[in-house]
């Protein structure tokens, strides 16, 4: 059985059907980064309630399906531009001390504004202060230059590149990140960011070291099983079971394990007994 650690997936936007299918496909652990919810938020309170869910309700929900849930906490780049949301920076230290928080993220650039510069740098400093890795989103628009600028900001911050994952890469942005010493994240999507087959070609060319493959499944058109699909595409292309295990399990464990807060104990027994037909799954009354 392929064991899968999805290093980037937004379970808050997914149903219990997804959890059930993910568990059946071999997903045993995941990290849910704090991000934009589609609808702009207008106050700090909406963020703290969201963060509370990421360290409270969502891990409980995942646990019902035998899946270990961790998260990353940050003010995302898009909302960093909204003055109503900036005070979120003030509540972050409290959340960055939680057991389930294994990185600062998603941080980085959306439109590459001066506000984003400031918030990105401030949150890299928080990662250093709280001894956490950082998960960095790269922009959809002007991606190649955005990625290079991201690497510059990471370098200036003084954080060790090995503590940083630069995410949503593609054929054009992987090389500078590989050179920087940061981890390389790829989001496999049904028809946009990256496909399983293109991912296999990238792994052939750049090797398996510091490579992270995620589904980044969220409220948009996406598929939480594309990690598994990528593993199968790797096997079909001649990679070994051990190669697949390295990319889909050992690499994300190594990256987030640097937080010293990853808890994967007792996972083999965790195919939860509460799961089978128990009314707890319906969420009580």
């Amino acid at each position: 059985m392929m064991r899968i650690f999805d290093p980037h997936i937004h379970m808050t936007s997914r149903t219990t059907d997804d959890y059930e299918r993910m568990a059946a496909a071999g997903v045993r652990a995941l990290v849910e980064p704090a991000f934009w919810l589609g609808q702009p938020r207008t106050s700090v309170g909406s963020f703290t309630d969201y963060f509370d869910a990421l360290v409270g309700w969502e891990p409980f929900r995942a646990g019902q399906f035998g899946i270990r849930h961790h998260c990353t906490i940050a003010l995302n780049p898009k909302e960093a531009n909204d003055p109503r949301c900036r005070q979120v920076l003030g509540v972050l230290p409290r959340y960055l001390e939680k057991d389930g928080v294994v990185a600062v993220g998603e941080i980085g650039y959306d439109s590459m504004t001066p506000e984003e510069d400031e918030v990105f740098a401030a949150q890299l400093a928080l990662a250093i202060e709280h001894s956490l890795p950082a998960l960095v989103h790269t922009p959809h628009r002007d991606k190649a230059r955005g990625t290079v600028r991201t690497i510059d900001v990471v370098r200036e911050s003084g954080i060790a590149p090995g503590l940083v994952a630069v995410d949503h890469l593609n054929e054009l942005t992987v090389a500078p990140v590989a050179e920087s010493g940061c981890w390389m994240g790829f989001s496999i999507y049904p028809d946009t960011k990256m496909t399983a087959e293109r991912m296999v070609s990238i792994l052939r060319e750049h090797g398996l070291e510091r490579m992270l493959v995620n589904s980044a499944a969220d409220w948009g058109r996406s598929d939480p099983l594309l990690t598994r699909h990528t593993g199968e595409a790797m096997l079909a292309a001649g990679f070994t079971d051990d190669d697949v295990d390295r990319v889909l399990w050992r690499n994300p464990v190594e990256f987030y394990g640097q937080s010293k807060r990853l808890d994967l104990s007792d996972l083999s027994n965790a195919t939860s007994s509460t799961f089978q037909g128990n009314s707890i799954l319906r969420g009580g009354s």
Partner: protein
Amino acid sequence: MSDSLYDALAAELTDTVWLDTALETVSRQPSAIARLFPAAGRQCGRWMLTSLPGWAVDDAARVLLLTALPEEASTEVASLYRYGDAAEKRAVLRALPLLPVPAAVVTPILLDALRTNDTRLVAAALGSTLDRPAAARHLTAAAWRQGVLKAVFMQLPLADVADLDERADGEFATMLAGLVQERAAAGRAMTADATDLLRRLEERVT
């Protein structure tokens, strides 16, 4: 009261350096608890204590940290709950019977926990701690009935509900009977402790 908790915990830790330092720091500088409280699990551990059934290491360590707060710093309790993850919230709930906090602080915390669908929080809100009077005594009869019926709904072990038979009144018996009938109509089973409770309550009336 918390001495027995400390002894049970200390007996199972490899060393108590972190715990002792944290307890001393909190008693001297209460605001430090905001950073020490979430760290208790990764510093001390999370296994179940063998000498104290129902207590995990992190629960015990967090409850002790709360009892180390000076009385005038009990305002920290509400904000630790507000910003707590599920394990921290559970520890606050379990500590409430041991803390000098007024009902005005206790009741909103219990009601928040009972609104969640997290079985660990609902159980902790209705349970007792080290034979102390349960925090749930501050709940109104209506809130307590709803809470316990929710526990039945979630199939929580009713043995962990404090003062169960003492507080279960005729109104609660009616509500429980309604749930039993609804489940029977749907062909779904009830847990034995719930049907036993209903039988006890009905026998009391006749």
